[in-house]
């Protein structure tokens, strides 16, 4: 018998998770589609479900003593986008996610846990070294989002854990972001690229690149980035950077697009970003 679990507070939720193997339902915008059967019928679950959207303790955006921004797991995209504390780059991404209605319902924690290769919020989270807090009856642990997502719909969550908080670490970077989809709204990303850079006295102090929708998870290479940091920006060779990333960008062909197109567009976006870095807004 599949159980429907409705905790009254976070403590109760964690106790339930310690006893049951659950789907964790927040806004429902992914799970209610995946488990939908037919009009008038209840969604069909193959294990217990715990409903966490009503947990008031998880609905907040706040700044901690280290200047990090902490977002509760039951905070909707709409409220994240409205918060004056949230860095602008996240807002730019959120505005292009799904539609107004969906953003009124969905949470960023849900977008992370769904671990779709096309999950748009994963791109800025990975680029900016954001992390999630996983809580259980045994306590909390913090994991970088880039380590938390293991593959297509695979995450590093133990059965008794849930995401309770997202930790954003504001960075002093200039950003570049392009999402390529079939239309302006409600588009599932074909390819996206976020770049971040900081240049001082002609020297690259920081250069980060993250691609979305072109592999099983967000593509970011610290090894590549470390090669460029410290170089003179004038000497940065765009073609060789593109060569470095070309083998890492391994998109698939599906109903939205084909792999050749996605690869080509990803490389073109990278070139555009690097031209902006070399043109330099920050010299």
């Amino acid at each position, binding site marked *: 018998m599949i159980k*429907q679990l*409705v905790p009254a507070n976070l403590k109760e939720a964690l106790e339930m998770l310690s006893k049951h193997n659950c789907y964790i*339902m927040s*806004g*429902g*915008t992914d799970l*209610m*589609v995946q488990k*939908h059967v037919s*009009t*008038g019928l*209840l*969604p069909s*679950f193959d294990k217990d*479900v715990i*409903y966490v*959207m*009503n947990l008031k303790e998880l609905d907040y955006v706040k700044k901690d003593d280290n200047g990090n921004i902490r977002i509760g797991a039951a905070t909707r995209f*709409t409220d994240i986008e409205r918060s004056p504390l949230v860095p602008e780059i996240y807002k730019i991404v959120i505005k292009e996610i*799904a*539609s*107004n*209605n*969906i953003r*009124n*319902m969905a949470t960023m924690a849900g977008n992370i846990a769904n671990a779709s290769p096309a999950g748009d919020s994963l791109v800025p989270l990975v680029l900016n070294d954001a992390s999630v807090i996983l809580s259980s009856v045994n306590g909390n642990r913090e994991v970088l989002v880039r380590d938390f997502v293991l593959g297509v719909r695979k995450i590093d969550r133990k059965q008794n854990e849930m995401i309770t908080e997202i930790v954003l670490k504001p960075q002093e970077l200039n950003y570049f972001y392009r999402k390529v989809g079939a239309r*302006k*709204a*409600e588009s599932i990303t074909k390819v996206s690229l976020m770049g971040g850079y900081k240049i001082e006295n002609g020297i690259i102090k920081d250069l980060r690149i993250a691609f979305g929708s072109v592999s099983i998870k967000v593509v970011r290479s610290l090894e590549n980035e470390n090669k460029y940091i410290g170089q003179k920006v004038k000497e940065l060779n765009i073609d060789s950077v593109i060569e470095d990333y070309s083998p890492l960008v391994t998109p698939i062909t599906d109903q939205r697009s084909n792999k050749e197109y996605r690869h080509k567009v990803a490389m073109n976006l990278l070139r555009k970003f690097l031209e902006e870095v070399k043109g330099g807004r920050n010299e």
Partner: protein
Amino acid sequence: MEIKFILNGKQVSVDVSPSMRLLDVIRDKFHLTGTKEGCGEGECGACTVLVNNEPYNSCLTPVINIVNKEVITIEGFRETKAYRIIADAFAEMGGSQCGFCTPGMILATYAVLKKNPHPTEEEIRFALSGNLCRCTGYQSIVFAVLKASEKGIEL
């Protein structure tokens, strides 16, 4: 389990699974059939209702998520002055043809005008981006929203 919420201004209670779609609760338990099911997966917005004055896709909302919240469907909204102004603007500008998207469009229009009484055309298109219409090509809907905004929806 017993789920309590406010539906069109009245406190209501219904004994259903927490996983039941708000759409099915509204249509099958309360027999309010103005809320339509189009795609059933959050793309088309035909199932739009207002939850605490914000548009939600009721086809993706497990009913437990609206406990103690205020839900307004097109049947509740049609009792208001704002409805009259918006509906007249849609009629005048040809913003409704087959009518299937119209309940959702009207509620989404109200939500945007309530937040922003004088939106630009681009702001209107952004706000209605979760509501699809296969008849009008959207232009006449945008004109209808502009018309309603000129008249002012008297909140």
